[in-house]
């Protein structure tokens, strides 16, 4: 046992993808999916055999990269978090029609309980929506084994396969037994005969949609091999998936009576209705333990042959993640008395900006400039990244944070409604992710909107991955059609404060669109030397080209 690999659940997925012979991995960072990509990236670098590991500008781009690799006949892993799948949804839903050539596995990490996300949407619904299979592990070893299985399934069924895990499993560390590592696949590029399958003009798409629906019985049959009906005694049963399965399994060790309950164990979707029917025939009452949405619960409930308990009837809370405690409550098990908690009011220790973070200087300059133009109460549209921390008191510098890229579009919308000054704050990687098309619209709309780009040169929040827009931001901005006179690059340090306030003020007063780039590298990334090599190479290039 001691010599097996120790890995997080999400790393186990990356590890399995490597061992299953992927030719490349693509993704966009997002907690808790990030480490899965980083693990496979490290393995690929170590192997040094020409495989690719590439962070993409956003999740849609990552997915499309994966599709291209699959088209070329190779296995590929694409990673993202649940909200990222919304960005890739266009590509994902359409890939169900084209199908795949080399196996394509999409790792999606959901975040029930919203540990670090804007919502707790359930990706299983998006698998169902696209008519695609979804596998759901419940332990670290299953993360590994089911990823392997997902690649096989993807190639057998010729569709992408989603692997859905949740935060608790993604960040659970355990021993892992690896299989033999397979060499990268090479099925060859999609054959000529299949070209029309990949061209989703309506005539082809209609045919492919029929094909996809015709595959559904096979999808169900394949899923059925991973789903189990465990007969038991009594007419009260449980239906289990994901962490619900993991927690119940452990409770059953401690409370042997639970092991005798009839249970339906789900690890793959779509679930075969015949299996559900067979389970329901054994019980009059079911408690469903699944993470996020009541997917299984709803399906069982609709059949109307048994009383179904779960998130819908209040047996479990409607929101938030599962826990062993919630299972115990719902099953009526007695909880032990713990130690008495301290009778002291414990204030929350909220995350905050690192000491010396350039974002703080940028926000201070922005707030002072807003006061100077007589709009200290102006609402500021924010975005997703470390700089979102400014939404907290006492800074309270941003007043809306919806999704990647929303800051610029919302500010333009507000400006079109007559709100001035209208300010958007966005980070450099978020700008590359989905701020670019929004800025194109801002330039075109020509309204008074000030776009503040906080350029820390990395994706700060998820662990300092290099930003795709690295040192390109102002060139991109100019390319979007913002006039040169309205683009400023500032250094957010205390010494520059007065000058920065003045520059911000000018931007706010300008009647058309303007962009202020505050550029200073993330303190954490400097500490870790993330861009050291890159900067050294740039300096050398500059010297040799005499551009300094």
């Amino acid at each position, binding site marked *: *046992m*001691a010599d097996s690999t*120790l890995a997080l659940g999400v790393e186990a997925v990356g590890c399995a993808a490597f061992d299953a012979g992927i030719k490349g991995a693509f993704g966009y960072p997002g*907690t*808790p999916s990030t480490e899965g990509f980083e693990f496979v990236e490290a393995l690929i670098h170590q192997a040094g055999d020409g495989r690719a590991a590439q962070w993409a500008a956003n999740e849609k781009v990552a997915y499309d990269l994966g599709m291209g690799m699959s088209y070329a006949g190779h296995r590929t892993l694409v990673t993202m978090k649940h909200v990222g799948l919304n960005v890739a949804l266009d590509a994902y839903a359409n890939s169900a029609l084209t199908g795949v050539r080399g196996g394509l596995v999409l790792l999606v990490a959901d975040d029930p309980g919203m*540990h*670090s996300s804007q919502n707790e949407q359930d990706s299983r619904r998006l698998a169902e929506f696209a008519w695609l299979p979804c596998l759901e592990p*419940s*332990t*670290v070893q299953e993360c590994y084994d089911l990823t392997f299985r997902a690649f096989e399934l993807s190639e057998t069924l010729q569709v992408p396969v989603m692997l859905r895990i949740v*935060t*608790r*499993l993604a*960040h*659970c*560390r*355990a*021993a892992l037994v690896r299989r033999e590592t397979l060499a990268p696949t090479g099925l060859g590029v999609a054959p000529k005969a299949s070209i029309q399958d990949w061209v989703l003009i309506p005539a082809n798409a209609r045919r492919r949609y029929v094909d996809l629906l015709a595959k559904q019985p096979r999808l169900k049959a394949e899923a059925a091999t991973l789903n189990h009906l465990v007969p038991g005694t009594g007419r009260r049963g449980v239906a289990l998936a994901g962490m619900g*399965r*993991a*927690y119940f*399994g*452990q*409770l059953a*060790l*401690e409370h042997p009576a639970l092991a005798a309950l009839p249970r339906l164990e789900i690890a793959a979707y779509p679930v075969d209705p015949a299996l559900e029917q067979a389970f329901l025939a054994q019980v009059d009452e079911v408690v469903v333990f699944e993470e996020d949405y009541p997917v299984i619960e709803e399906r069982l409930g609709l059949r109307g042959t048994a009383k179904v308990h779960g998130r819908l009837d209040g047996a479990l809370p409607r929101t938030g993640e599962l*826990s*062993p*405690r919630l299972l*115990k409550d719902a099953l009526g098990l007695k*909880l*032990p*008395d*713990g*130690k*008495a*908690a*301290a*009778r*002291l*009011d*414990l*204030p*929350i*220790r*909220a*995350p*905050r*900006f*690192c000491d010396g973070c350039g974002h703080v200087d940028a926000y201070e300059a922005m707030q002072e400039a807003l006061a100077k133009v007589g709009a200290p109460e102006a609402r500021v549209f924010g975005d997703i990244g*470390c700089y979102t*921390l400014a939404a907290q008191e006492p800074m309270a510098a941003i007043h809306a944070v919806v999704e990647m890229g929303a800051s610029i579009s919302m500010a333009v919308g507000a400006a079109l409604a007559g709100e001035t000054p209208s300010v958007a704050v966005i980070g450099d990687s978020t700008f590359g992710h989905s701020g670019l098309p929004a800025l194109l619209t801002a330039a075109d709309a020509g309204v008074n909107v000030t776009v503040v780009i906080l350029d820390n040169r990395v994706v700060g*929040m998820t*662990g300092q991955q290099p930003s795709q827009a690295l040192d390109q931001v102002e060139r991109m901005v100019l390319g979007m059609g913002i006039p040169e006179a309205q683009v400023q690059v500032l250094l957010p340090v205390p010494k520059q404060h007065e000058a920065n306030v003045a520059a911000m003020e000018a931007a706010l007063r300008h009647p058309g669109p303007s962009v202020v780039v505050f550029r200073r590298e993330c303190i954490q990334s400097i500490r870790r030397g993330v861009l050291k090599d890159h900067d050294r190479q740039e300096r050398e290039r500059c010297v040799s080209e005499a551009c300094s």
Partner: protein
Amino acid sequence: MNASRIHGIVLSGVGGQGVLSLAQILLEALRRSGLHALQSEIHGMSQRGGSVHAQVCYAEGPLSSPIIDEGCADLLIALEPLEALRYVSMLRVSGALVVSEEPQTDMEGYPPLDDIYAALKAVPGAHLVDTEDLARRLNHRQAGGMVLLGMASRFLPVNDGIWREVITQRFESKGARVTEKNLEAFEAGRGLIKEPVGV
């Protein structure tokens, strides 16, 4: 250790203090002792100086839940006194806690330190240690985590050799001196609790 049940350790502290790396050392040491073990960590935004906590579960047989219920943990290891109080109710009545007295007060409304120490001392099974003072005496600024681990080792079914092995491997890449310093801090912590106390 009680063979038939699942044991749990809760670790808490502030982002950047090394809670997760301590948890990984524990996980490795328990596994090398022939036990089944799982670790759960919650981070993300919490890396920016927020509360961080991790859990380690272990048992003689297979485990599938990485989370410990309230009132079920055997041991709490806290790198910060306020972050210790936050998790006291995770412990079973007989549970123990090892706590650093060194506060991280860089937040809104940190309660008076004396109140925090008093509340901690009132918890049966609490072992407080002035890690700041110990670190000074050991001439090793970051000794705190290893001192706490040394104390915690008194409550865990892991032998001395395995602890030394795991700690050595952890710090190997940083050189022999750093490894020695950490082993020394571990021993200092171990010495603070005289008798091995199984839980």
